[in-house]
């Protein structure tokens, strides 16, 4: 319950503000442009419906992870730079409760992005295969990825105590996680690429979307990748807890 108080405070201060809202307007504008291009551009509109849905899902996931990283990096280092961390630490809440409240706000932010994206997912996927099941997977895996990357970035923020450095390190992590996108299909097909794909939670999520939406494969095909993502979720929460023990004024 104490965490819920921090979560509400964060939502009021970071999400329901004019500055916070700009993110959502930009998100919807980008999704509008992408959806319109996918459906009307002479080459893109001929992509398979499942392929379009998969690409939009990847984009939404990446956006959710990216904004989660910014939230995480600001969590403690930002409070410290604004001079508000001391007041937060002397409140009756312990560090983990504060962190869970902030993590809750980051996940709420992902939830808003997901809700904004729903009409686009339905329009782009209309008449295609596996739309509903794809959206369910996006909701579950997107939430887990938001927890993983926000918690990791929050842990860095508590350790590094500099928002700029925490943000830069988090972005490097994001690029590393997104590296399968930059690798060619041939490299991804090698043993090195396969291992990199398998141990990377972001790649696991997008490969799961591919398998569910395009290849229509069942949960038994996804179980291994989902288990790895769940493992990373626990690992990131453990990292956050360890980092909080090092947090002091």
């Amino acid at each position: 319950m104490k965490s819920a108080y921090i979560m509400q405070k964060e939502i009021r201060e970071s999400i329901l503000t004019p500055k916070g809202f700009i993110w959502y307007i930009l998100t919807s504008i980008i999704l509008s442009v992408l959806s319109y291009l996918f459906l009307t551009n002479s080459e893109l509109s001929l992509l398979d419906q499942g392929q379009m849905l998969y690409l939009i899902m990847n984009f939404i996931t990446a956006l959710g992870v990216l904004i989660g990283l910014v939230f995480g990096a600001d969590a403690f280092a930002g409070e410290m730079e604004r001079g508000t961390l001391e007041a937060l630490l002397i409140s009756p809440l312990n560090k983990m409760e504060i962190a869970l409240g902030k993590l809750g706000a980051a996940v709420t932010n992902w939830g808003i992005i997901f809700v904004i994206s729903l009409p686009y997912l339905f329009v782009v996927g209309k008449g295609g295969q596996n739309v509903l099941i794809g959206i369910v997977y996006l909701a579950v895996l997107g939430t887990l990825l938001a927890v993983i990357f926000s918690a990791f970035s929050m842990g860095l923020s508590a350790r590094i105590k500099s928002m700029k450095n925490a943000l830069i390190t988090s972005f490097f992590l994001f690029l590393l996680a997104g590296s399968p996108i930059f690798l060619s299909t041939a490299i991804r097909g090698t043993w090195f690429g396969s291992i990199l794909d398998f141990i990377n939670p972001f790649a696991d999520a997008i490969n799961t979307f591919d398998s569910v939406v395009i290849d229509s494969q069942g949960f038994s095909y996804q179980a291994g990748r989902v288990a790895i993502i769940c493992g990373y979720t626990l690992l990131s929460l453990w990292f956050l807890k360890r980092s909080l023990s090092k947090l002091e004024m």
Partner: protein
Amino acid sequence: MKRAIVFLSLIILAIAVNYTFASAASRVTVSINPPSVQANMGDKITYTGTITNHSDKAVDNVIAYISLANITQGKESPMDLEDWSANKAIKVDAIPPHGTYEGKWPMRLIDSGSYVAYIMVVDKHDNTPVSSTMSHLEIQRVLRLNPNNVLPIALGEPVLIGLVFLFITIKRRKADK
């Protein structure tokens, strides 16, 4: 002079015989169907290639592949079939003597224009690849402005979020006063 004429005639004869032998040496022929197609962008068509073995021996391990060239004025170029066709090349294990093999090349028509499609067959025992005749392909442009009712969502949602944003801003300003 006579000798020279005889000598030159022999050379020409040798070349002609050699050419005839080379032509006859092509044990297979290939044809493409349909010979011409008129379709719209986004349509799916299938080309059928029929490879015929004219020899008394079985032909094995031949490779057949389809090629597409854009012949639209000003856009002349060979096409990369990756987006157009799933199976570009087919390996045929064996065609019996005087037998035929039928290969299928499904294709999704990605862009408008005038094209020619042709099928090539490569037999490792032949020095010359065998080509089918060219099938003319005319693809009409299709313009869709509001597929899947995307426009109301694409225009409406940013406006709706903008209105919520305005509502929250005004409410906050009133609360601050």
